[in-house]
């Protein structure tokens, strides 16, 4: 029942992420089983599935926050091996947004945004600050630049986290349940920013339970269970005409509560 990658955008498009037969174990526990996935430039892919299905682990393998033990992962044709130079290069090219925001609490919002451009990209401070203010504008919180993360609401913090990744001008963005730690009234402000980002053509791989978001912006939805990709389809097909029973069960649980 494992689908092969179905190109949603034109096949000629640049491949950004390619996973070939990736396996991962936590001790004895087989958390990722034979993952094959290709993400092309501009694609928006939503990964969903029950908790413990390996979806977070999957995207965390892409920037090597988790190490895979079998198979190969390429990001923009650079293979992820234990070579630190490659890992650091890939991390600087792929943004990641975490469930718990993980802003740096000892730095102001502006300093959070300029840290990596200055220290990884060697950008002059003034230029980095200009860039940071542009992105704060884009996530609609330009007025919070000089505050500390602890003074912001959860929704604002997550938008700062998105802007922080964007400041590195990434070729793809990974989102690890970006709205799961938010109060309900703040989810929308974060999703709006993500939708806008998707419209701007950013390549996105999003682990989320927000099925509305998947319907609106995804061009592919991936359903995972017990470490496997069970189903992979366009949102239209995925929601209206799921093939596997496990997908049907999951959708009925998540959509009718």
């Amino acid at each position: 029942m494992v689908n092969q990658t179905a190109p949603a955008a034109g096949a000629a498009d640049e491949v950004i992420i390619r996973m070939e037969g990736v396996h991962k174990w936590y001790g004895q526990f087989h958390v990722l089983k034979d993952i094959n996935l290709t993400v092309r430039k501009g694609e928006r892919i939503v990964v969903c599935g029950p908790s413990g299905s390996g979806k977070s682990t999957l995207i965390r393998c892409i920037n090597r926050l988790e190490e895979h033990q079998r198979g190969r992962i390429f990001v923009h044709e650079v293979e992820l091996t234990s070579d630190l130079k490659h890992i650091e290069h890939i991390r600087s090219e792929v943004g990641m947004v975490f469930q718990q925001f993980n802003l740096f609490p000892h730095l102001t919002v502006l300093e959070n945004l300029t840290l990596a451009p200055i220290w990884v990209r060697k950008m002059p401070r003034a230029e980095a600050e200009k860039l940071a203010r542009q992105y704060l504008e884009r996530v609609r919180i330009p007025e919070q630049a000089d505050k500390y993360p602890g003074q912001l609401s959860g929704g604002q913090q997550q938008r700062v986290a998105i802007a922080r990744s964007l400041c590195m001008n990434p070729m793809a963005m990974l989102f690890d349940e970006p709205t799961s730690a938010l109060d309900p009234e703040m989810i929308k402000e974060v999703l709006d920013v993500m939708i806008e980002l998707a419209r701007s053509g950013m390549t996105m791989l999003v682990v989320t339970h927000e099925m509305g978001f998947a319907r609106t912006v995804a061009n592919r939805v991936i359903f995972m269970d017990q470490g496997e990709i069970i189903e992979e389809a366009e949102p239209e097909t995925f929601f209206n005409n799921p093939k596997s029973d496990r997908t049907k069960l999951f959708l009925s649980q998540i959509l009718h509560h």
Partner: protein
Amino acid sequence: MSVATASERSGAGRSPDLPPPATTTGAIGWLRENLFSSPLNTALTLAALYLIYLVVPPVVDWALLSANFQSGTSNKDCVGDGACWTMIRARFGQFIYFRYPVEERWRVDATFLLLFGAIVWLLIERTPGKLHMALFLFVVFPPLAVWLLFGGLGLATVETALWGGLMLTLVLGTVGIVFSLPIGIVLALGRRSDMPAVRLLSMVFIEFVRAVPLITVLFMASVMLPLFLPEGMSFDKLLRAMIGIAFFGAAYMAEVVRGGLQAMGRGQYEAAMALGLNYWKMTALVILPQALRIVIPGIVNTFIGLFKDTSLVLIIGLFDLLNVSLLATRDADWAGLGSEAYAFVALVFFAFCFSMSRYSLYLERKLPSGRRK
């Protein structure tokens, strides 16, 4: 909404805001709440007052009211039962500089003026040019201080055997503090390293040094080390004591810093890594600034302990402030004035340690790490 707003409560015609009863606010309220809230509390308060009455007036009388402040040359110049501060006055130069030649003492003054000036400059928030001052303190100042204190290049050489008193205590304390923190940080990082050899070395060093009393370290540095060195090769006793103290302090500091590193969540590491920062940038820019702030009380605690422990160098024959005061009590001219000498030493130590402690409290309040989500 069941909670009434303030404007609703003070609405005209209805219950106006009344001041609280006089017995619950102000001095009376404070006394009632803090000193006389229960029979037991009242009894404790009275007992404490009685103790204060027993101790404080005689001490004030001895140290201030009946004390001798006039100058003199021996204990015969002191009159009455009060303290004889005359002795401190007469031997003040020795307490501060020990045998450092009188005509060269300006060099000690200059060194410590520069040191305290630079430190105060760095510690006060609103002074400009902090980076230049830090560069001066950590790059220019150390060789400058060695030149000023020791001599050479145009200045008369003053052997370290002549150093002593408060000056020696400060030299040992400053060197210990300045070196123990960076070495301690390196050891703490080493102990958490992924590289087994680095981890093992750091751990062995920390555990070994912590398991040994400072006196033993000093003994080893001053007595045993020369035995292992080839004949004719020796280095300064003071230098050996400094190295001993710095590494001893570093082992304790390493454990304090490790506590701070331990308290950091995985998320901070992951966020820093995900942005492409390498290990050293992540450690220097994201992890250490937060980890060190968490353990400021522990760091300052170690500093204070280290500063006071410098007095143990008397065991290897160095004349720090405490040892100089012991010398004073053995002087026939000033026989029987031990209390004055020790009180003076205690006061000097207190002044330094208390300032460090207050500054650490101020730092904790000031730094934004207090604002957690």
